């Protein structure tokens, strides 16, 4: 096994982890921080990708807009997922705060409905976005050699998302309110903060991140029905391994799962699928709060 090979596979794991982080960070906001059980997070990912593609495809075919089509698709995907997320929170989940089982069942139902609606509207054909000209093709990296630019872009984007979220939660008033709401909702409401509005904002933000992940994911890999379950499961595992409600933990969890998937595929292809779950079981056995989760007080 050459150094080049080891580095390439590790970088592949890293870039995959970047995609996972973008999607799972949204889940971490909703589930980890707000404690809203959202089993439809994978559906938000799909909504982002499908709506983004519906906007992108005709633009890409036209001559005038082709060069901006991808960016417009990204924006459309983010907005669509955020809107659906907002509706979910305002119409359904908002008044079930704290009833985890009820939320789980409602969102599982929603995810089935959304998947069927997408099948009805867009059909079962897989599709993918074409990487914009600027990000397409390989670039030369030291030791590794040719490597796709888009995958490197994923990492840059994930880091930007991570820093943005950290700043938002730690350096802004909204962040203070959100963290206060996690600790004591009633006290926060008594202080005159409009808690439902904050909850809706955070939910929409989490959903928007899923939508962004959807378009990025559908550019890196083909998008087809059924990926919702995959990304929901991945988000759950990442957030649970990393620790609920910790952005750093989510990043660590995503890294671990991304690397495990890529190295698993290389070292024991047949059983790579179970590696993720072995990691989750081990982490839960040793650190029940997740790697960077807060100890219960």
């Amino acid at each position, binding site marked *: 096994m050459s150094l080049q090979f080891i580095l390439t596979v590790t970088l*592949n794991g890293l870039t995959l982890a970047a995609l996972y982080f973008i999607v799972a960070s949204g889940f971490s906001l909703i589930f980890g921080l707000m404690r809203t059980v959202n089993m439809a997070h994978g559906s938000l990912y799909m909504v982002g990708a499908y709506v983004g593609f519906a906007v992108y495809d005709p633009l890409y075919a036209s001559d005038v807009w082709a060069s901006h089509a991808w960016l417009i698709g990204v924006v459309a995907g983010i907005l669509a997922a955020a809107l659906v997320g907002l509706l979910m929170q305002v119409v359904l989940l908002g008044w079930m705060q704290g009833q985890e089982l009820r939320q789980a069942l409602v969102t599982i139902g929603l995810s089935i409905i959304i998947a069927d609606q997408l099948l009805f509207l867009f059909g079962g054909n897989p599709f993918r976005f*074409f990487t914009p000209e600027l990000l397409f093709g*390989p670039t030369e990296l030291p030791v590794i050699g040719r490597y796709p630019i888009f995958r490197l872009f994923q990492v840059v984007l994930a880091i930007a998302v991570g820093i943005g979220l950290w700043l938002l939660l730690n350096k802004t008033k909204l962040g203070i309110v959100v963290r206060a709401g996690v600790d004591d909702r009633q006290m926060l409401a008594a202080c005159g903060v409009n808690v439902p509005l904050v909850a809706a904002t955070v939910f929409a933000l989490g959903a928007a991140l899923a939508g962004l992940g959807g378009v990025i994911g559908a550019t890196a*890999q083909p998008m087809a029905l059924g990926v919702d379950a995959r990304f929901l499961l991945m988000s759950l595992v990442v957030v649970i391994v990393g620790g609920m409600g910790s952005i750093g933990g989510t990043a660590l969890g995503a890294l671990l799962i991304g690397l495990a998937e890529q190295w698993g595929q290389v070292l024991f292809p047949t059983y790579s*699928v179970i590696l993720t779950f072995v990691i989750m079981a081990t982490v839960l056995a040793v650190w029940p709060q997740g790697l960077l989760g807060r100890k219960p007080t």
Partner: protein
Amino acid sequence: MLISRRKTVAWAMGTVAAMFAVTGALAQDGPIRIGSITTLEGPFATGGQDAYRAMEMAFEAIDYTVGGRQIEWIRESSNATPDVALARARKLIEQDDVDIIIGPLSGAEGIALRDYSRTLEGKTIVNGSSGAADTTLRDPSPNFFRFNTEGTQWMAGLGTYAYEEMGSRHVALVAADYAFPYAQVFGFMHEYCELGGAVTKLWSPLNTTDFSSIIAQFPSDVDAVVLIQGGTDALAFLTQYAEVGGDLPIIGGSITADQTLLSARGPHQSLMEGMVAAGPIADLNEDPNWQDFVARYRERWGSEGFDSPSIHAVNYYTNTIAVIQALEEVGGDLSDNQQAFQAALASAEFTAPTGANVALDHNRQAISDIFLTRIVNDGGTMRTEAFGRTENVSQTLGMEQEAFLALGSPSRDNPDCPPAR
């Protein structure tokens, strides 16, 4: 008194027996219930849809009537996994009470239904499009018939072409890790390794979306890539391979160059043009049977269907017309545990929509023609074009069954011809 009571009992029993006989006769005049299973979910969803288009054409052509009996068609769907296919087959037999099942589409599903068919009495399963070799080769079931050729047969001629015409000596083989690709890999390597070629095998689970680490494992001295993947998996591989600037010639499996790949726009197209493959169909084929079939397909389905019928459409169609023909021959008679019907199936011989002659061997497996194909840009549309044809390919690739079985069952590790270190 005693006697009369006995008489009464006998009379009653006689009446009941007569009633059974009547309902039995009624069942013979009632509709023939044909169930079908294909994949309307999962990675082969588009292929599954197309399979049902073709079946619908076959039934419409006879107006859903055969041998004076109506055909009642009950459609089921699987997701390409054997447990789901089996559950749906059970549902068709136990709840819908079908006489015949046509399906499934994918390799491992076929083996599951073959095993299930053995437990049935008076029911017949005719394959849809599944192409694992062992479904009929090893431990065949008397109730399972397959009128399409399978994965190993489909590769006939390709290994030789790669070695002799393309001058390839060492290929990187990227294949999905389940029964059908095993059969395809076996078919390719059977010829290629015999001639002296070396193969580096790289397996990936079905539904792999990220092939970057597999691409990273290509040895530096390979001169071609053999891609035994289908649907979205093949699309993912080719796009990612194009994205790292890969430029080795691609040799495809029989379901690699399907409509998912051909109709999708994107960077993979530059790699696909000129890709050679082998299989039971080609989009561009001079045979009048094929021309006629394609014309009927396009007329019936228009823009709803594919540009050209897919491999699954052709396989389901071939199997369906075999069933219809056999039913016609026995006049719709499925009595006596379907013995006459099964005998008619076993001796059926006809021309498939591709123009290939179809006959069954003693394992109820089709012997038919295989095409060598290449992808051409046909006026802006990517299509596969036939440029070679191997006639009457048997499941044992022309070998004696004993000798062929001695080669072992296709698997991850069999056959094997790694490069010399």
